[in-house]
């Protein structure tokens, strides 16, 4: 039984960490209707900057905040490429992710080990095994509440409008482009926070950590929609569900070559079930 609890704990921890990417993907593709490929680069830059700052001996919380800011900046770039240079949404994201690869290499190299403190090493020793879970849980509730509140303010409503009815934004005398950039800043910021948290959690940075993050984000978002299509804690649950599916795939211990197909099939099954549900 202990084994299962440990596995479940790991699934929830990773689920929360990647839940921020899921939230980022949701913000961009559902709210402002922008397929944001730049989350992958933002995730990487968040992790790289965190690794560098912690290795300098900076307070890990400040490192986390700095990572969020760096992610936000990458969102500004993505947004400006789209609004000012009229690049296609996908292309702007691809360009940013591609460019960030080099910046990440310069910042942290291809691999960096954190020997020092992380945000998960601040609680008393008795709680040590549950530290990541506790810290992540609190952080997740805080940030998600903050985002939910923000999306209900006037600015939040206008963000919704950018995706649905851009004309309305213009009608009230606001700039659609400005709100689009704001949406991308938030989206990339969340992805960067996720990347930073993963580095805190794993205690090392690798340039390959970002690989496949976009899929994790998309899959988590789609699974979350089984529960709710609104921004909220459902996104984290979707992310946890995806991590559980991956863990389950490993647990089945089929020939490992089939792992990815099994994961894909499990997602289809889960979404298929949604179709049988009575509609509201």
């Amino acid at each position, binding site marked *: 039984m202990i084994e299962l609890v*440990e*596995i479940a704990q*790991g699934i929830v921890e990773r689920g929360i960490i990647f839940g921020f990417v899921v939230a980022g993907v949701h913000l961009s593709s559902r709210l402002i209707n922008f397929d944001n490929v730049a989350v992958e680069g933002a995730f990487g830059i968040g992790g790289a900057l965190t690794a560098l700052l912690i290795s300098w001996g900076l307070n890990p919380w400040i490192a986390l905040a700095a990572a969020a800011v760096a992610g936000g900046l990458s969102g500004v770039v993505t947004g400006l490429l789209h609004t000012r240079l009229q690049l296609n949404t996908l292309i702007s994201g691809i360009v940013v992710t591609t460019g960030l690869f080099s910046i990440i*290499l310069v910042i942290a190299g291809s691999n960096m080990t954190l020997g020092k403190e992380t945000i998960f090493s601040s609680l008393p020793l008795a709680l040590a095994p549950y530290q990541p879970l506790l810290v992540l849980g609190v952080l997740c509730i805080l940030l998600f509440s903050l985002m939910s509140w923000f999306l209900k303010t006037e600015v939040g409503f206008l963000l919704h409008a950018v995706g649905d009815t851009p004309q309305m934004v213009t009608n009230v005398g606001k700039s659609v482009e400005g709100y689009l950039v704001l949406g991308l800043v938030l989206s990339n910021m969340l992805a960067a926070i996720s990347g930073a948290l993963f580095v805190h959690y794993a205690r090392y940075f690798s*340039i390959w950590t970002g690989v496949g993050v976009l899929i994790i984000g998309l899959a988590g978002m789609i699974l979350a929609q089984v529960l709710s299509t609104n921004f909220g804690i459902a996104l984290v649950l979707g992310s946890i569900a995806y991590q559980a599916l991956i*863990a389950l795939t*490993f647990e*089945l211990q089929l020939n490992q070559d089939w792992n990815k197909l099994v994961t894909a099939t499990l997602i289809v099954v889960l979404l298929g079930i949604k179709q049988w549900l009575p509609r509201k």
Partner: protein
Amino acid sequence: MNKIVLMSILGVALVGIFVIKRMQKPAGNARYTIGILQTASHPALDAAREGFMQELQSTLGNEVAFVIQNAQGSVSQAHSIAQQFHANKKMNGFFAIATPAAQAMSAVEKERPIIISAVTDPHALGIIHPTTNVCGTKDMIDVKAEIDMLLHLVPHAHHVGLVYTSGEVNSRVLSKLMRKELEARGIVVSDFAFGSEADVHAMVELACRKADVILAPTDNTVASTIAVIAATALKHKKPLFVSDNMLVKSGALAARGVDYKTGGKRAAQIAHEVIVEGKKPFEVPVEQPTCEQIFINQTTLEALGLTIPPELHNQVVLEEKR
């Protein structure tokens, strides 16, 4: 309401599968169970795994069972697997192949022994310390011997192009050492680093136009794309030296580097010492398997019009292009 009922049924079913799979696990009558975490599917890493398993099976027979998992190149999946291994109390030890697997495994497991292989510089990863639970073999090559071989085969070399992946630690560490060694002998060195497999062809074309010898460190992308690299080098009549002996078969001119299978076998002997004989991992230093042989591809050698100098004759193993 229906949603909640359905989701809970699903949740229970999921937990059920976990429980059933866990109960089934006592793998026959094996006394030792070893979890193998491989970073990605790739010939060198597969060879390390096979060498490891063969060696342990030959000494322990049915007493050892393996649980093999592959992270398929994803760091988060490597973590996921490492954590599931950690939760499995029936496992006596772990075998982590290549750097990301070693890092993920040692980040999660702090007590039971972790045997590593195909890791270039474990000390730089901070996983080897006085009370470590990590031991095994690395895949660092003897750079000086490799450069000696290069100059024996191509004495007129004056500009060497290094091809490697910019994002791989092992490649960066090795290419720096190679550059230092070559420059010490008055040879011009240029870097031709690529970001991903997609850039390999263009970058190697460029390297072949600029340099007169191509040299590659142990590198996952080079291993995957060796066919393209070897064909391009041959087209330009440039000798291609690699650091993974297995790649010579695929058309590279020569290598005096790492034999991953030997590394895996040696790691298995270390695993035996630690898991069966009960030595502490920190008592067993990380080893660097040596390579006394030079692997040369005869077809490529003839195509380039080169000959093997007499002083190398007794070290050379000739390989045919498949």
